[in-house]
């Protein structure tokens, strides 16, 4: 009897091996595959979801017109979404899977620098174009000819936050709390610190505290910060942590303002944070309230389809995907060999010098990083992100 069970188990093992070998067969030559490496689950699921929604909308647009025209022939688009669970190592796995198993031409995402920096290394090593919509850390594209982005960089965003806070709050001292396990958060925190001390003198960043990604209690760090009496607290953190930090700071008796960064700008921020976040400011990529032209059209269509105002990630994904598609068109033909095709797409993408995106005009100077404007928004009592100020690079 027991031996029987074991033999059955072996049969199951053999069968599953066989079934496994069958997966992944069947390829269609009239489609172009673009991979998406997104944060669909994990800490920031709304970010991945917004990206996926925007991409789906774009795909339907193009496929309903018969497909993307490359070299006189129309190709249907196939978007493949891989979940990177908002983890660095999963992002690498997802990128490898898209490259090796799905054979995509190019990859859009990951969004957060925490995932985009390691995934960028993987894509660069494997010679596949990667365009990140939302990753602002300089390291993502640094020395990586195959990696591009559709947003501004932290060395630009940091000074925006510094100057705005100094002017708006009349602040002399600042404190920072950031996630040390997150490339984005740590990088921006350090840039902010340098910039602020350059502006207000050494020692004016009175608190510089870190926390871990899975932390829920920040009371010890905030106690330290509040004891140092900063004029405001800078929180370059993901929106889910922002909600906890701001609330706990208020519980500990802090009454000053907070300044945030673009990672705040998710549609989910206000559901999580509620009244604690009202009135706070953060720098971001675009302001949905009061947009015009193509941007407004995008917002209205997105809103009609998915029932919420698209956040900056959605808009940036739209731009990043359009950049990729323009590069595929610019390649002039779809090569049979996937490696040659990837090379053609990269060269075409590197040749794009200017691009009119819905998040503003982008100028590329050959580094894969665009030059574009940043905006600062304030959270209104209704939970809307209201335009406050726009800062453009010289």
């Amino acid at each position, binding site marked *: 009897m027991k031996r029987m069970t074991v033999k059955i188990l072996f049969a199951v093992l053999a069968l599953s091996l066989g079934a496994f070998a069958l997966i992944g067969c069947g390829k269609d030559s009239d489609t172009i595959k673009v991979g998406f490496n997104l944060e669909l689950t994990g800490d920031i699921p709304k970010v991945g979801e917004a990206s996926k929604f925007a991409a789906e909308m774009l795909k339907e647009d193009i496929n309903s017109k018969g497909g993307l025209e490359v070299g006189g022939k129309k190709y249907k688009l196939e978007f493949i979404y891989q979940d990177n669970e908002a983890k660095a190592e999963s992002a690498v796995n997802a990128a490898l899977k898209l490259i090796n198993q799905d054979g995509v031409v190019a990859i859009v995402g990951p969004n957060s620098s925490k995932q985009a920096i390691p995934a960028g290394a993987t894509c660069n090593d494997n010679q596949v174009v990667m365009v990140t919509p939302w990753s602002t850390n300089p390291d993502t594209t640094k020395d990586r000819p195959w990696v591009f982005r559709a947003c501004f960089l932290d060395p630009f965003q940091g000074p925006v936050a510094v100057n705005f806070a100094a002017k708006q709050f009349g602040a002399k001292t600042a404190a920072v709390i950031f996630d040390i396990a997150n490339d984005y958060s740590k990088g921006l925190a350090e840039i902010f610190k340098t910039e602020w001390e350059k502006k207000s003198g050494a020692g004016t960043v009175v608190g510089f*505290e870190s926390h871990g990604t899975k932390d829920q209690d920040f009371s*010890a760090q905030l*106690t330290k910060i509040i004891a*140092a009496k900063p*004029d405001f607290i800078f929180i370059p953190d993901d929106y*889910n942590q922002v*909600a906890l930090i701001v609330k706990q700071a208020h519980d500990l008796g802090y*009454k*000053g303002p907070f300044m945030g960064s673009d990672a705040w700008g998710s549609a989910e921020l206000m559901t*999580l944070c509620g009244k604690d976040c009202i009135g706070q400011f953060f720098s971001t990529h675009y302001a949905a309230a009061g947009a015009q032209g193509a941007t407004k059209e995008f917002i209205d269509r997105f809103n009609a389809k998915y029932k919420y105002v698209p956040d900056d990630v959605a808009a940036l994904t739209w731009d990043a995907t359009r950049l990729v598609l323009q590069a595929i068109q610019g390649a002039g033909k779809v090569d049979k060999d996937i490696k040659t095709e990837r090379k053609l797409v990269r060269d075409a993408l590197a040749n794009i010098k200017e691009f009119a995106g819905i998040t503003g005009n982008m100028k590329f100077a050959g580094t894969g990083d665009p030059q574009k404007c940043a905006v600062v928004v304030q959270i209104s009592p209704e939970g809307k992100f209201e335009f406050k100020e726009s800062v453009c690079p010289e």
Partner: protein
Amino acid sequence: MITGGGPIPEVPARFVLRRGLARTHPRRKAVPRHAARKHHFKAKVPLVEIFQNILNALQFGSFYALIALGYTLVYGVLRLINFAHGDIFMVGAYLAYFVAVTLLGIGGLNLGLHMDPGLALAITVPVTMILTALVGVTLERTAYRPLRRKGADRLYVVITALMAGLVLENGNLALLGASRKRFPDMIDKVIWNLHGVTVTNLKVIVIVASILVFLLLQFIVTKTKIGMAMRGISYDKFAIPLMGIPLDTIIVVTFVLGSAMAGLAGILFAMSYPILEPYMGALIGWKAFIAAVVGGIGDIRGAIVGGFLLGFIEIGVVAVFPSTLRDLFAFSVLLIILWLRPTGIFGVAQTTKI
């Protein structure tokens, strides 16, 4: 953290007016009266910080203690490390969320209820504890008991518990989606400020609740017949049924008690840290388990002492060092404690007969 000897800059008056946070917290004055005095008593600032951090540690330690109690109860009776316990705590928090939003009429089941938050809280607490206890008992009946009956190796039960935890976590993720849930505000927040040390009413509730739960469980285990039966089972599982004590009933009672406490911890945690996610129980569960072992697993006092000890070590480390060193220090200290006292603080070494 304290910079030089210069005066601490005043908060600009302009900003105090504009920020209008006083609106949201009407009980607080915009500028504490003693703020000006602090300039002269600089040495006092660290003292305030120390008291503040003691309170922080008591609050976080309470959660560890409440969860550790569940581990310790089940372990004391069954010698089973119920690794799913952290996830039962998570389920407790989610159940509390669904009960609360249903009662408040802002989501969940649409029963057309719009209760007063205070009343809703009074109902949410017992209902959540009962529901969470049901989850714990179901787990025991469907997963652990059949294995126990078959006389499987103890470690296979532990693996089953681990897997059950994963099912709870990921089942939650699959069913409810990846978006976080925000726990509604159930009580009006009151912030007391005692010479710079701030306490919210919630913090006091959490600390008091954990101490009351400890006293209650200590009473049940040491003074009642059920408790005597529980201790008996842990002493000799084979002789106890011969005394006419229903083994399975006692085990169910143990799971009810442990899971109900996890449910209570879930509610209190959701009120203190109102963002719920499917993996919230995993890390805190592992740490609470370690706390229970350091205290001496199987002993109620051990769970409480271990829980608060872990809370104090963690907050203490963060208060002095960069917060990333927290786990390193906390676990090293625990390792040293176990090294010196291999059975934990209150644990008694089991004698092996040759």
